[in-house]
């Protein structure tokens, strides 16, 4: 106890040195925490928009539909979405039908992918709808209103309000054609979607394929991505009575997105390790320097009768105090920065060429941080640990040096 107050006094005796060390440590910790929280947030953002545009945190498929995309592999919805949506932790359950087909206008025809959706549920979470003016949204699951990819619309020489005919294969092998009407335009920035996607109400699409009430995919969006493994068996159990229907996590349903994120994450991790290393070296160096410069002072202490053991203890206590202070300072700064980056985000739109928006899926120009409190604490404690570690060698050395020599020491 005594040591702590002594150490405290010691720290402030050479205020300048302490402040420099403190700022070095604190700023390093602040950098670590802010950087981690920012990339943590950006990944969460990528996963979030990725799963919303894609097949959700958890997707239900029959058999290997995710890979084969065989239209035969549909299954009965029969209230499954509603049942899943009621589970705590589930934000939305999106039933979907996918049918390859042909769209024709009076001028042109193009191969398309017809996507049947539940408009009310989809409008809330699908990022493709984000840019859609309200009057362009579709509302009726059985209606003929359709959202058409921007490029497809242009190629078919259609405009909003125009009619067009979509032909798909019926379950019995024959072709069915239906009249649809352009309600809105999908501008996702993703070439494949803009050039080939037609979205209509789910029941309309299912009826065209002769599979009323059936779906190909049930995309489940969760409140928190971390609930995924907990909810996976719960959702699978709900679909138990449907033979062959499986619940798969998004990493399996969208391997490309998952891999892209993981590859990016791997490189970030590597860079992070490098930053951590650089910070560690900086911190250890500053500390070593600070303690080593005081060997003369330690000699004086030894000469006036301080035992080496007490000296060591005092050095360690100083290091501990310094570490805790830096942790406090760094975490305060880190929290402030994280708070700012969470609330405001890092807006890169001015840095990027105009019109750069990558579908809201892969890249959003406003980077937002997210809180990872556990990790912030870990980093703080890491800095405290570094302080203690960096003081071991000087502490031992200082205690061993004969006072006379130490006093000569510069």
């Amino acid at each position, binding site marked *: 106890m005594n040591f702590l107050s002594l150490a405290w006094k010691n720290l402030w005796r050479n205020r300048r040195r302490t402040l420099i060390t403190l700022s070095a440590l604190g700023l390093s910790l602040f950098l670590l925490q802010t950087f981690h929280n920012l990339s943590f947030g950006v990944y969460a953002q990528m996963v979030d928009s990725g799963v919303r545009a894609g097949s959700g945190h958890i997707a239900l498929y029959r058999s290997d539909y995710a890979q084969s995309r065989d239209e035969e592999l549909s299954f009965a919805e029969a209230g499954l979405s509603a049942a899943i949506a009621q589970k705590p932790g589930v934000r939305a359950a999106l039933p979907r039908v996918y049918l390859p087909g042909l769209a024709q206008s009076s001028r042109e025809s193009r191969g398309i992918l017809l996507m049947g959706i539940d408009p009310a549920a989809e409008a809330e979470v699908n990022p493709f709808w984000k840019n859609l003016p309200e009057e362009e949204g579709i509302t009726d699951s059985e209606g003929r209103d359709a959202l058409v990819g921007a490029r497809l619309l242009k190629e078919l020489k259609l405009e909003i309000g125009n009619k067009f005919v979509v032909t798909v294969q019926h379950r019995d092998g024959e072709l069915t054609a239906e009249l649809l009407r352009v309600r809105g335009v999908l501008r996702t920035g993703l070439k494949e979607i803009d050039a080939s996607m037609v979205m209509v109400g789910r029941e309309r699409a299912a009826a065209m394929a002769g599979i009323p009430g059936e779906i190909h995919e049930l995309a489940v969006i969760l409140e928190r991505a971390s609930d995924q493994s907990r909810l996976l068996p719960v959702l699978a159990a709900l679909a138990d009575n449907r033979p062959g229907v499986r619940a798969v996590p998004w990493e399996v349903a969208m391997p490309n997105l998952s891999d892209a994120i*993981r590859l990016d994450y791997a*490189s970030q991790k590597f860079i992070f390790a490098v930053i951590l290393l650089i910070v560690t*070296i900086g911190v250890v160096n500053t500390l070593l320097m600070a303690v080593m410069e005081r060997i003369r002072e330690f000699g004086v202490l030894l000469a006036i009768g301080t035992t080496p053991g007490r000296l060591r203890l005092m050095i360690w206590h100083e290091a501990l105090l310094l570490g805790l202070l830096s942790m406090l300072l760094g975490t305060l700064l880190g929290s402030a920065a994280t708070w700012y980056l969470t609330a405001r985000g890092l807006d890169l739109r001015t*840095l990027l060429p105009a019109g750069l928006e990558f579908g809201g899926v892969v890249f959003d120009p406003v980077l937002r941080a997210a809180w990872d409190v556990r990790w912030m604490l870990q980093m703080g404690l890491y800095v405290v640990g570094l302080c203690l570690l960096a003081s071991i060698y000087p502490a031992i050395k200082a205690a061993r040096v004969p006072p006379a020599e130490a006093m000569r020491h510069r």
Partner: protein
Amino acid sequence: MLLRLAFRNLWRNSRRTLLTLSAMVVSSALLILALGVFSGMFADMLASVTEQYHGHLVISRPGYQDDRNMFAHFVADPTLIDELRSYPGVRGASPRLRAFGLLAHGDATRPAELLGIDPERETEVTSFAQQLIAGHYPERTEAAALIGSGLAKKLGVVPGDDLVFLTQAADGSLGNDLITVSGIFETGAGNRDNALVLVQLPWLQRLLVLPGKIHELALTIDEPMAAAEQAASLKAGLPADLETRTWGQLLPEMQEVIASYDVSRLILVTILYAATGLGILNTIFMSVLERSREFGILMALGMQPRQVRLLVLLETLILALISLILGVAAGIVMTLYMQRIGIDLSPYLSAVTYAGGTLAPRLSAALDGKNLLIPATALLLVALAAGYFPARRAARLKPVEALRED
């Protein structure tokens, strides 16, 4: 005189010098390595965009790349191709003819894109030959097809099987023929693996009734980042009715990805520099501040404050230069090692499709002059700044006060 004193000072307190030195060397080396890894990823991305399909430059009729109109063809003039191939900065040129139609095997029918190529020339531009998972790359004249893995699976074909291709030929007839699968490729990019077939150029020319015609010439060049300049320099040697597009124009979304990647790199690099600079700043700051007493003695002995300031700056400069030489050397060694060996992530990841490009699951590095010069300059400036303030302070000290200081 002052220089000698600076050297002696550094030498005299070897422990402090070594500490400062080690901090600067290790952090600048790590910074160079990190930047090298970024460059490596960038190079991978660029290669993935260009080597897997388009090449760096594509020469075709105006508008062909937008609507892929079958009739926007031109004569595959061998002298033009040879001229292009020998043009400075051009590494290879591959003539191609493209057709969209139906591919059938047994009862299975799938829409497909056929690319008629000269197998030998194509290897100069794309890497299909290295992406085979079954069978072999076709010989020069062998009437054989390379088919994407996803398409092969959907059609149920293996090397040796026959495929029927059906499309509308240029004379309006129903062009159709059999072709044998010689190999299956897997690029990792779904849109190609599920729809692309490579066939011999003469075979496709016959089927489409377009003898001697091609749709595009795909080029690889030495400086992909200067594709626009290269395109401009080629213009004079090309017929007026042909246009050249760069990979950036062909894949605008890839350019966006690269731009966004540049931004995230900017953020990371800022943090990297900040962390490195902070460490170095502190080390030097501390090492100079701790020497107040020493400067006091020097001034008491009659040294001018200006000289003291100069001495400190000189010491810092020497220290910074030595550590930068060592740091850059260590950085180059680590980058080269990383470039050669890399970190293989394939146990955790499959190939990643990234806006039209495909990345191998591997972290590697690339050596880029900018990655050495910028950190070196920046660190030198940081070191001098770190030396300047304490030097000024030292010069302002009153000898008596300084001597009293701990």
